[in-house]
Every structure is written in structure tokens, then in C-alpha cells.
């Protein structure tokens, strides 16, 4: 199987895990799998913040 297909499949598995965790939290009121949501939410938050920070970045070597 191609590398891209593997990557897509793994991302799909992660998505399913996130959906099941959210379901468990919202429907079952169980926090047993909330860690997956924190992980995914954290990554999403920092991606968003990093994207926003590109507004105050400029090209060049990191110096002063």
C-alpha cells in the first residue's frame, strides 16, 4: 500500500477514536476517554494559534 493511503487510514482511525471519545463524554457522561479529546483539542488549538502567529512573523534568520 502507498504511504499516502496508510497515512489517510491512520488519520481516519484517529478521527473515529475522537468521535467515539466525544460520544462517550457527551452521551455516556463518562470521562474515561476524555484524554484523547484533550490531545486532539490541544493539537488543534496550537495549530490554530501557530497559524494566527504567522501574522506577526517575518522571513529571515531568527536573531534580534
Amino acid at each position: 500500500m502507498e504511504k499516502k493511503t496508510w497515512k489517510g487510514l491512520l488519520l481516519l482511525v484517529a478521527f473515529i477514536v475522537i468521535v467515539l471519545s466525544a460520544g462517550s463524554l457527551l452521551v455516556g457522561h463518562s470521562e474515561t476517554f476524555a484524554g484523547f479529546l484533550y490531545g486532539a483539542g490541544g493539537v488543534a488549538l496550537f495549530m490554530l494559534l501557530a497559524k494566527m502567529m504567522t501574522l506577526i512573523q517575518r522571513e529571515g534568520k531568527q536573531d534580534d
Partner: protein
Amino acid sequence: MIDLSSVPNIPPGFIYILGAVLLPLFGKGKVRQAYLIIIAVLGLISVAVMRAPQTSWVFSNLIFLEVDRLSLLMGYIFAIAGGCAIIYSLATVKDNGHHICALLYLGSAMGAVFAGDFFTLYIFWEIMAFTSLGLIWYEGSRRARDAGMRYILFHLFGGCALLGGIIFHYMSTGSTLIGPVEYGIGYWLLLLGVGVNTAFILLHTWLPDSYPKATIAGTIFLSIFTTKTGVYVLARTFSGAELPFHGQEFLFVAYIGGAMCIYGVIFAILQNDVRKLLSYHIVSQLGYMVAGVGMGAIGLGIMATEAQELAIDGAFAHLFNNLLFKSTLFMCMGAVIYRTGYNNLTDMGGLAKKMPITMITCVIAALSISGIIGFNGYISKGMVIHAAEMEELHLLVLILTLGSVGTLISFIKLTYFAFFSKNDEIKAKEAPVFMLIPMCATALMCIAIGVYPQLLYNILPYVEVTSHYHAFETGHTFSVLQIVLMTVFLFFMIGFFAPHEKITYDVDTLYRKVGRGFISACEGPLVHFAVAMEKQVLRLADYLVKFSQNPRRETRLGIGAGVLFVLLFFALYLIIMLYAGWLSP
């Protein structure tokens, strides 16, 4: 057998300061190395034999040795981390001046921790600022010189605020003893002064600006003392500080900690310079400590709840652990910079095989700071977050948990791109032995505390409460495992967080613009004034020269005017004498 309890305790700070004074007598060779190791060991012994509680070395109102469980904990970790930094510096530092600055810095930090009153604290606080400046300036470059100037300006501002706060506090209470401060101008000035050293948001810019520009060994020392002394003083003075907000009391210091946690992490993720990344992580990790301190209650004259005691223990457990893993990380990255000459992640990679011991210790420290199970960061972060849960501060729990996700992201980035990513061109070899010894020692301590947390619990201020805390509780462990799995998976799958050569603006850009504007606004009138003054002084000097050559020709005053001048001076003299009461019998 000598009974150590009968030997009078010597303030540990004095040992390091005396060590610095005598250092030039030991030349620059192996004797100096042995001498420095002896000083490090003596400092550790002086803390280990300290009796608590005690108040001694009191001169007038100055108390140089106030020992309780909290100051003793700080003494332990400063002696351990400082000792490791001294050994590490043997590999890279040639100048005696650098070693003297480092020892004075360590000694003054110890002095501040064991100070029993605000004035003694202030004296050591200022010595810390100036001696740490030496560690930045010894790097020798123009960047370091400029960053050092900005660093000292910030710290002088903080020192002035601290002194103002102390004076106001003394005027209102008549006490100089270190403890909670009454609400008023002094309260805010003290908070500002302490906030500069603790790197509160907006007051933090000196830290990521100067630490990456210091010498390799200097950065290790810098990462240990200034900010942690700030947290310690914050705990003594502003623990559990509240402000009224919408009719409720608001634990604002705790939320300042939460903001620091997220702010530091996001800037860390965006960095390419490894020491700048680590510097922003100091801000972030300080956030956990400040949050814990903000939730606690020291010296408030109330019975602290279990949650408040756990919060303080969590904050100081994290301070202890942070000094172990953060100094390991700085030491590892210092070794990488020393061997490769590169500072940026974009230039690194492929070092895992070339520097295996450095890689292993760095990975251990990265796992520790990321709060992975079995490493010390997991224990102390869990304590702070658990205390927030007990106090029902749900927003703070969320912020601190998300902060740990960000920490994990940035340390996967650091270790992967420094050691494991492909780079066949890089040339390096393993770090010198004096670098490896302290790195391995601190990394081992990270694992030891992570596996057997009782080692740390036993020296915390509220040992009874903390001994009931179950770090490896199934639900918590399982939750952390899930967070780690998801974050690691998404990091590698998305590939979003790769390093790049871009400059990220922080608020110091604004400060510098305002500063430059202020200087250019003042420059015109000041230069005009200076030129006018210079002209007048030159005229006067010229006149005096000519007068001394031929007084008669240069004297243009008439006899009457001269007499008038003499009378005027005589009258002025009489008025002063009369006013001062010197004429009265």
C-alpha cells in the same frame, strides 16, 4: 563522631560568595577545577546540615538565615542544580571572571532564599541581577552586549519597584519581615518587582531575549536561579492573592500562571533557536508554579485547606523537578551547540548516533517536562492540576492540561529535529566528560523521582497532605496516556510543526519601538542643552586660563561691582548661618 547539630549553621550563600572571592588564588588549571568542585560540594553539605526551623545571623534588622521547610527545599535544589552547572562549566569556561560571576550569582540566589526580611532579600536580589549580567556579557558578541543592556534595564526597573514596595510596606506595617503584603501601592509595586523576575506575561521579554545569547554555561546558571527565586518570593508574599471580580473573589495570580503556561508554549513551538525554545518553555513551566502558588495559602493566618496545601506542594515539587529537567535540557543543547556550532533546529539533525549519551539524557528530560508517566514532570504537573480540580477551577484545569499538550508538541519537535531527522552533513562528536557527568546525574534524578515520588514528597512543605496524593491513580494515568498517544500521533501525521527560519515578534518589539521613539523625542532638546552647556563651560575655562595669565587685563569688573559681590556672598553666608542655627549662642 561529630554531632552536626552542635555546629552553627553557615548561610550557604556565604560559602559560594567566599568561594568567588578566593577563586583567583587557584590559577586556571586543574587546581581551580578541584577547588570549584569542592565549593559545589561544600555548598550542598551546608544545606544538608541545616536545622529547620531556625532564625539566626541577625544583624540589626537584617536576617541572613531564616530556615523552614520551604526555604530548605529551595536550598537543596539550588545546591544540586548549581553544583551540576559548576561542573558543566568546567568544560567550557576559561575565564576566572565567568566563574566568579557564576559563584556570586549562586551565592546571592541562596542569600535571597534564606533571607528573613525584605531588605536582606533586596540586597541579594540586586546582586543577582548584576552578577547574572556578567554571564551574558562574557559571551562577548554585540548581540550579547545589547541583550545584556536590555536585561539589566528590566531588572533595575523590577528592583526599583521591589524597593518601592518594600518601603511602602514598611511604612504601613512597621515590619520588614517577609510575608503577605497589605493591599495598597506597596502591594502593586511589590507584585511588579516580583513579576519581573517571575517573568509574568508582558514582563517576561528579558528572558527569551537574553538567555539564548549568554555563554553556553552561563545559560545553565541563568535558567536555574532568577525566575525560581521570583516564584519563591511570590509564594511568600502573594500566595492565594485575590481580587474582587463580579462580586466574587478571583484568584488572579493563579490565572496569571495559566496565561503564562499557554503563552510560553505557543511561542516555544514557533522557535527555531533551541535555547530560545527552551527559554520560552521556562515561561510556560513557571506558569504551573505560579498557578500552584496562586491557589495556595502561605502565611495568611488562616487554616489552609487540603487543596491549598497540595497546590503549594505541587508548585514547589514542579519547581524542584523543573530545575532538574530544564537544566538537563539546557545542558544537552549547550553540548550540541558546543560540538556543532549550530543554534537552530533547521541546521541540526542526525546527532543521535554522533552524540548518543547527550541524546538519551535529552530524551529523558523531554519526557519529564512533557509529563510522561514514569518521569518526574508527571508527578508535579499532576499535583498542580489535581489541586485546581479540588478547588473547582475548571478553566484553569483545562488551560494547564492544554499547556501540557503544547509542551509535548514542542519537545517532540526539539528532540526529533535535533537528533533523529536526517542530516548526513553534520559533523559532531560526543560531549566532553565534564558536560556528560551533570547531564547524566540530573537525568537520573528525573527518573528516580518519577518512579519513586516519595523521594520528593518527604522534603515538601506539607508532607502529610502530599503523602495522600496518588500520582499513579488509574484514571489519571490512563488519561495522560491517551493525551500522549493522540498528540504524538497527530504531530507526525500532520507534520505541521516543522521548524522554519522565521522571526516571531513578541511584545518586546513594541517596547523597543516605544523606547526608540522616546529616545529620539528626548534626543533633540538634550543634544541642544548639552551643546549649550559645553559652549559655556569652554568659555569659562578659556576665561580662567586667560585670567590666570594676566588677572589685571581680564578683570572687567569695576571696584564697586566687586565690593557688591563680596557683600552679597557675605549676606548669603549670614542667612545660611542664621537658618541653620549656627549663630545662636
